[in-house]
C-alpha cells in the first residue's frame, strides 16, 4: 500500500485486538497500515467520508450499506478497534480452532456472526426482521435497471414467501439462516487475505 509498515508497538491495544479478533500480528499490522492510509488526515479516526473515497466502493451496489456497517448506530467515526472488529467477520474459520479459545461467546468469524453481519445489511431498521420494503430496497440495489419495479416487487414478494416460515410477511434472522443453510457461508464470507 505504499506506506511504511508500522511497528507493532505503534498499534494501540494490540494484544486485546489480537485476542478479540483472532488476527495474527502480521494481519493486524497490515490492517493498521490500511487504516492509516484511509485516514488521510491522520486523525486516528475514520469517517464515512474516508471510506466513500475508495473508488471501487462507489460502484458496489451494497457499498453504502457496508460503509455504514463500519459505524455504530448514530456515530460518524470509527476507531481502529471497531474497524478491525468488523473486518474480523471475514477471517476464514479454521477447522478445529473454533473451540479451543474456550470463550463462551462465539468468535467474530463464526458462521453465526458472519450471518448476522450479512443480515444487518438487509435489516436497515434493526428490528430483527427483513421486511418486504427492506427486501425491495436491496433488490433494487442489486438488480439491474432492466428489471421493472413490478417485476422487482414480484421477486421480493416471492423471496420473502420462500423464506418466511411463520407467515409474518418478513424474514427473521432464524429464517434467514435457514434459507442459506445450504450455502457454504464459512467459505463464502471469508477472505483468504485475512487468514
Amino acid at each position, binding site marked *: 500500500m505504499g506506506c511504511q509498515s508500522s511497528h507493532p508497538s505503534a498499534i494501540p491495544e494490540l494484544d486485546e485486538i489480537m485476542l478479540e479478533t483472532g488476527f495474527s500480528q502480521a494481519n493486524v499490522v497490515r490492517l493498521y497500515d490500511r487504516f492509516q492510509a484511509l485516514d488521510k488526515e491522520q486523525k486516528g479516526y475514520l469517517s464515512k467520508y474516508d471510506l466513500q473515497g475508495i473508488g471501487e466502493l462507489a460502484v458496489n451496489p451494497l457499498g453504502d450499506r457496508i460503509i455504514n456497517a463500519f459505524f455504530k448506530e448514530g456515530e460518524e467515526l470509527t476507531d481502529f478497534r471497531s474497524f478491525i472488529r468488523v473486518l474480523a467477520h471475514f477471517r476464514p474459520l479454521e477447522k478445529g480452532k473454533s473451540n479451543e479459545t474456550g470463550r463462551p461467546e462465539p468468535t467474530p468469524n463464526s458462521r453465526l456472526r458472519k450471518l448476522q453481519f450479512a443480515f444487518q445489511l438487509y435489516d436497515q431498521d434493526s428490528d430483527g426482521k427483513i421486511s418486504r420494503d427492506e427486501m425491495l430496497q436491496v433488490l433494487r440495489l442489486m438488480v439491474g435497471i432492466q428489471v421493472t419495479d413490478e417485476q422487482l416487487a414480484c421477486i421480493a414478494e*416471492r423471496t420473502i414467501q420462500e423464506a418466511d416460515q411463520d407467515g409474518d410477511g418478513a424474514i427473521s434472522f432464524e429464517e434467514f439462516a435457514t434459507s442459506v443453510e445450504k450455502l457454504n457461508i464459512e467459505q463464502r464470507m471469508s477472505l483468504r487475505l485475512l487468514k
Partner: protein
Amino acid sequence: MQPPTGPALASAPESPPGAAPGSPLLRWQWREVQAPCLVAGWILVASLAKIVFQLSKKVTSVVPESCLLILLGLGLGGIVLAITKRAEYQLEPSMFFLFLLPPIVLDSGYFMPSRLFFDNLGAILTYAVIGTLWNSFATGAALWGVKQAGLMDEGVEAGLMDFLLFGSLISAVDPVAVLAVFEEVHINETLFIIVFGESLLNDAVTVVLYKVFNSFVEMGPAHVQATDYLKGVASFFVVSLGGAAVGLLFAFLLALITRFTKRVRIIEPLFVFLLAYMAYLAAEMVSLSSILAVTFCGICCKKYVEANISRKSRTTVKYTMKTLASSSETVIFMFLGISAVDTSKWAWDTALVLGTLLFILLFRAVGVILQTWVLNHFRLTPLDRIDQVVMSYGGLRGAVAFALVILLDGAKVRAKDYFVATTIVVVFFTVLVQGLTIKPLVKWLKVKRSDHHKPTLNEELHEHAFDHILAAVEDVVGHHGYRYWRDKWEQFDKRYLSQLLMRKSAYRLKDEIWDVYCKLNIRDAISFVDQGGHVLSASRLTLPSMPSRSSMSESSVTNLLRESGSGACLDLQVIDTVRSRRDKEDAVMHHVLRGSLYKPRRRYKASYSRHFISPSTQERQDKEIFQQNMKRRLETFKSTKHNVCSAKSKARLKKDGRKKKKSAANAELPNGKPPRSVTWQQTAAVLVAVDSDDEESDSSETEKEDDEGIIFIARATDEILQGKKASGSLDVCPSPRIIPPSPTSAEKELPWKGDRGDLAVYISSETTKIVPVDMQTAWKQSISSLESVASPPGAEPGLHAKTLAGPAPEERHVVPEQRTCFQFPNPLLRSSRPQSAGSPERTEQPELQPLMAPDEHGRMSTSAGPSNSRWLIQFNRAARFSDG
C-alpha cells in the same frame, strides 16, 4: 471408424456373381455404402450395448459404463479377429482426433460450470501444467533408469529421449476417461472441477511435450541443440495461449452470429456446432492446442449464445451435444477394446509395463501431494488428505494416450510396439481397475459428495449479496484480489461485451436473480399442472419449491402470466374493473365458454415446413390445459362472486380437465426427468416473458392463422334482419349465416375481446342476441308480447329485458339444439372491424329493432339471473354436440 477402402465384413456378401445380364431389378451396392454403413453400424452396436447395460441396474451401479464398453470391445474385437483372421476396425488416431474427440471436449467445455472453473483456475492450471510436466519427466526418466539398470528386455531399444516421449504421452490425465468415470461417482464439485479441468487443460502440455520429444527423437538426440530446448519452452506458450486465443475468437464470432439468427431459428443450433468445430479444426491446422480451443470456445460463448438463441434451440443444442458426446465416448471405449485385441502391434515387456504402472501411480501421488501442499497456502478452503487421495487415484489415462502412441513413427521410435502394449495395459488398468474401485474408495473415504438441490431465490439473492459484500470488504482492506478482477470483468462484460454480443431483447431481460425467479415460477407452474392442476382452491395448493406455503406464488405466477401477455390471465384485472353487471355476466360467460368450448373444435393446419416448427397438437393441448387451469384457478381465487353461476359447468369441466391432465401426467411420469423438461419447454413458451419477444409474436401469429374460435353470431346484424324481413313473417326463420360480426361496445371495453384474437370464443355483450333464429315455438310464444311492446328504435334494452323475462326460460331449452347457429368466422376479422360499422346499419332497420331487442334482452336478463348456470351448461352441451 475404419478406412473406407478396407475390406468388407466377411459376412457381407459381395455382388452376386452370375447375375442375369441386362438390367437387374435389384443391384447389390455394398461398396458404395460401405463406409458410412459401417460407421452407422458400429455406433448402433455401441448404442444398443448401452441399452443392454442399463437393463441391469445392479451391474451399472457397480461397474462404470466405460469398463463395460471396453470389455464389449474386447469381445467384439475377438469375434472380428476370429472371423476375418486379422484385426479390423482399430481406433484410428485421425478419426479419433478429428471426429471423436471434439464433441466430447465441446460438451464438457460448454456445460462447464464456469464460475466454479474460474474460481479454481489457479489450482487447475497448476495441476495441469506443473503436474503434467512433472509426471512426464519423472516417469520418462525413471523408466530410463530402469532400462539402464538392465531390468528391461534387450528388445526395448530406447534412449532417454524415447522414454521421455513415452512419458509425455502416458502421463497426461485423459478427459474422456475422467469424465466417464467421475460422472458416475458424484464427488463434490470442487474436486471434480479440479480433476476434470486439469485433464482438459493439460492437453496443451501434452501436445507440446509430445511434439517436442517426437522431433527430438526423429532428429536424433545428438543433434538437439540448446535452441531447440528454448523453442520447446516457447512453443508451450504459443500452443497453449494460441489455442485459447483461437477458442476465444471463435466464441466471439459464434456469439455475434447468434445475435442475428432471429429469422432462422431452425438452424441456430447448427452454428454452435459448426463454429466450435471450426475452432477445433483451426487450432489443429496451425498445430495449436485444439482441445484448449474448443474448451474455451465452449466456456466463453455459452452465456451469450444461451441468451440469444430461442428456448427450443437451447434444448436442441443441449441434447445434440450430449448425444454426440455420449456416442463418441461410447465408440471410443468400444474401439479401445477392439484395438487391444490386435496382437500384431503388441510387444510385451514385463519390466516396462510394471515399471510404467508403478511410476505413473507413484509420481501422480507425489506430484499431487507436493502441489497441494503449496496450493493450500493460497487456497481459502484447503484440499485435505482425502481430496488428495481421490485426485491421485482419479488420474485416469485413456484414449488420447492410445491415439498418440499409435501415431508414433515405428521407424524412428523403434520401441513403438513395446510402448503400444504398455499404453494399452495402462489405459485398461486405469479405466478398468481404477474406474471400478474409485466408487467404493470414495464411499469408504467418505468424500464429500455433491448435493444437488434446486436453487432457491433466497440463495441466489444472498449469494450475490455475499459477493458484493466480499468485494467491498476487499476494497476496504485495500486488496485487489480475484474478486476485484471478477468484479471488473463483470462490469466490462455488462457495459460492452453483452451489449455487443446479445440481442437487445435478451440483454434487456438479462438478470440472474430475475432468471432464477422465472425458472422457479415455471417450475411451480409445471408442478401445478403435473399435480393435476384441477386443484381449484389455493389453500390446497402445494408447491415443491416451498412446501410450507399456501398462498405462495399466487401473486408471482399471476404476475408472470400477466406480463407475458398470455391471454389466460387478462381476465382477472378486467373483472375487477368492469363496472356494469351486464359486463360481468358477460365476462363469466366468456370464461366458461372459452374454457370449455374451443378446444375440440380447433382445426390444425396440416402444414409442413422445413424452416419452422409449428407446435404439435399435443403441445397445443398441453398449453391449453395449462392456460385453462391457471385461468380457472385465478378465477376462482379472486372472483368468488362468479363461482355461483358457473359451479355446475365447472364441476364438469373439472372432471374433464382432470382426466386429461392425469393422462398427460401418466405419460410423463415413467420416463422421469427428460419428458418433464420437455414439458417445461412447451409450457414455457406460453408463460415466460423472458423469451425473446419475436418468438412470442410468432407463435401468436400462427395461432391466429390456425385457430378458429367458435363464434356465436352474436349480433342482430342487418343480414339476419333483412332475411327476416324478406321472409315477411316471423314464422319462417332464415337459416343462420356466417357474418363477420363487428366489434361490440363490450369488445371495446373489455380488453380481452381485443386481444389479438387468439383462440377466443367471443361472447360479446350481444352474445345473447344470438337467440337461435329458427326457433319457432319460442318465437310464437313471444311474438304477441313483442308486438305489444311498442318500443322506440334504439330504446334502452334493459327495460325490455325486465318486461320480457317471462317467456325466456322456455326458449332456453331449445337453445342447445340449434347447433347450426354456431359458425366459425375468422376472429381476426371481427377484432379488426371498427366498432362504428354496426351501429349505423342498425339504425337503418328501425322497424325490426323492437322485434329483436326485447327478446335479446329478455335472454340477457335471464342469463344474468340466478338460473344462468343452466343456461351455460346448455351452451356447453351444444359444443359437445357439434364436437361429435
